[in-house]
């Protein structure tokens, strides 16, 4: 089966970060992904092909999933000629910054915690392989769907892909996902007590647990704040966790 050029480029984009480096970050991934198009356009002149490929070795870093949108946009621009390709590259820097921020917030701070928290909740509800199946299928159904959709929109609509992504209201979705994550964490905390059979255990065990929970929490906070002082508000989540455990124990 021979894949179409657009599909080849998308499949190559799944290796977007294979050679991620501190010098120019994802530049090789970009050049590798777009190469089939450049080869098709400039096959008759190998020197020119090499020049155009080197043109794509610019410092580049964005969210690896929403990078598909920029890749689609760059393919769209390069297909219209070198000058347009250069304009696309000039714009791609700004798009990379924008989608880096939006994508990281949505995927790393929203989708990943939500799906993982739900999978862990499923595990503590009833330990089985369903937790794994849920984690893998739910995350990839959403992430691959979005990745391919933004690629196609970039490919066909060029800079119009911004409107597409904007119409999805990703920050709002992220807020909703945070609520789901928080709810599943609360349920998980509750399930933990049963899972570890903490009810009715010896009196010595319980204070030790509470102490360790507090120590763990404070260590975590100090690490995050570079050893700085803790603020009162940051102690609230740990406090509620400990209060919940206390109420369940005594």
């Amino acid at each position, binding site marked *: 089966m021979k894949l179409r050029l657009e599909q080849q480029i998308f499949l190559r984009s*799944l*290796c977007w*970060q*294979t*050679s*991620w*480096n*501190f*010098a*120019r*970050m994802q*530049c*090789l*991934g970009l050049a*590798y992904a777009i190469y089939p198009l450049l*080869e098709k356009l400039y096959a008759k002149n*190998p*020197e020119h092909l*090499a020049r155009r490929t*080197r043109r794509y*070795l610019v410092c580049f*870093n964005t969210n690896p999933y929403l990078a598909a949108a920029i890749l689609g946009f760059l393919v769209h621009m390069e297909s219209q000629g070198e000058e347009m390709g250069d304009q696309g590259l000039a714009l791609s820097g700004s798009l990379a910054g924008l989608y880096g921020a939006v994508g*990281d917030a949505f995927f790393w701070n929203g989708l*990943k*915690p939500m*799906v*993982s928290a739900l999978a*862990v909740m499923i*595990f*503590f509800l009833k*330990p089985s*392989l369903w*937790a*794994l199946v849920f*984690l*893998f299928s739910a995350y*990839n159904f959403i992430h691959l769907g979005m990745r391919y959709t933004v690629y196609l929109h970039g490919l066909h609509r060029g800079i119009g892909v911004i409107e597409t992504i904007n119409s999805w209201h990703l920050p709002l979705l992220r807020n909703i996902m945070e*609520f789901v994550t*928080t*709810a599943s*964490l*609360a*349920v998980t*905390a*509750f399930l*933990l007590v049963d899972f*570890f059979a*903490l009810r009715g255990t010896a009196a010595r065990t319980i204070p*030790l*647990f509470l102490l*360790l*929970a507090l120590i*763990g929490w404070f260590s*975590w906070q100090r690490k995050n704040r570079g050893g700085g002082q803790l603020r009162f*508000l940051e102690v609230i*989540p*740990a406090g*509620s966790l400990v209060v919940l455990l206390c*109420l*369940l124990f005594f």
Partner: protein
Amino acid sequence: MFLAFYSVKVGKIVWLDLIPFIWLAAKISIFGAVLALDRTAIFQGMLSRPLIAATFAGALAGNWEIGLLLGASLELYFLGEIPVGSNIPTDDTLLALVAGGTAAALSGLPANALVDDKSLAFMVLLTILPWAGFTRKLDSWVRVRNARLIDDMETRLLAGENASAVNFHLYGMLNFYGAAVGALGLMVVSSLLLVPLLLLLLPAWAWPLTDRLLLVFPAVGIAGLLYNMNQKRQLAVFAGISLLLLVYSL
């Protein structure tokens, strides 16, 4: 080659054959490192999440259930660390692979020689967590090494070998894979040696507590995630749902 360790349940010194452990370390290194590529190098489809990685390593060592338990504990513990920009978080995939493989191997020892699954899982986590800093440094090292590929690609492009030049991008996969294989081998062997030593050093009064101490990992993970969200509304949701569950359980 044999290793002596003190069995808590049996109450005497037990001798372990190390050859199967070395074979297991090789198996986890070779196959686990393929799974670890999903973390950065290819796809990024959650195959590298601790829940899946630890279960996979546990299955390789003959006990996926303890791998799943460790995966669920580590999943929440490391979920707060996110790869934003050029920040390199702890490589929880490698840690999960080591944890799942080691715990499964030790749980399979004859005559209930070691402690129960939850205690064993806790011991294993104690031996692998100090490697967290090492995995971050290793990841950085690979990314520094990947920068050489840019020069290699440009040199080939200047030489007119365009098609082979862009494939240098894929060599990054070898860097990630090689580093993962080496690190996994080292960590699995060290953990397999350290856990029996830890069992020997732990005071007798602490034995009944060790199975419940595993709770600390998901608890700290929950606290870290709530901290990351950093919104008072999330805390209210957490506290509200916890309260509802508490009332329901009474």
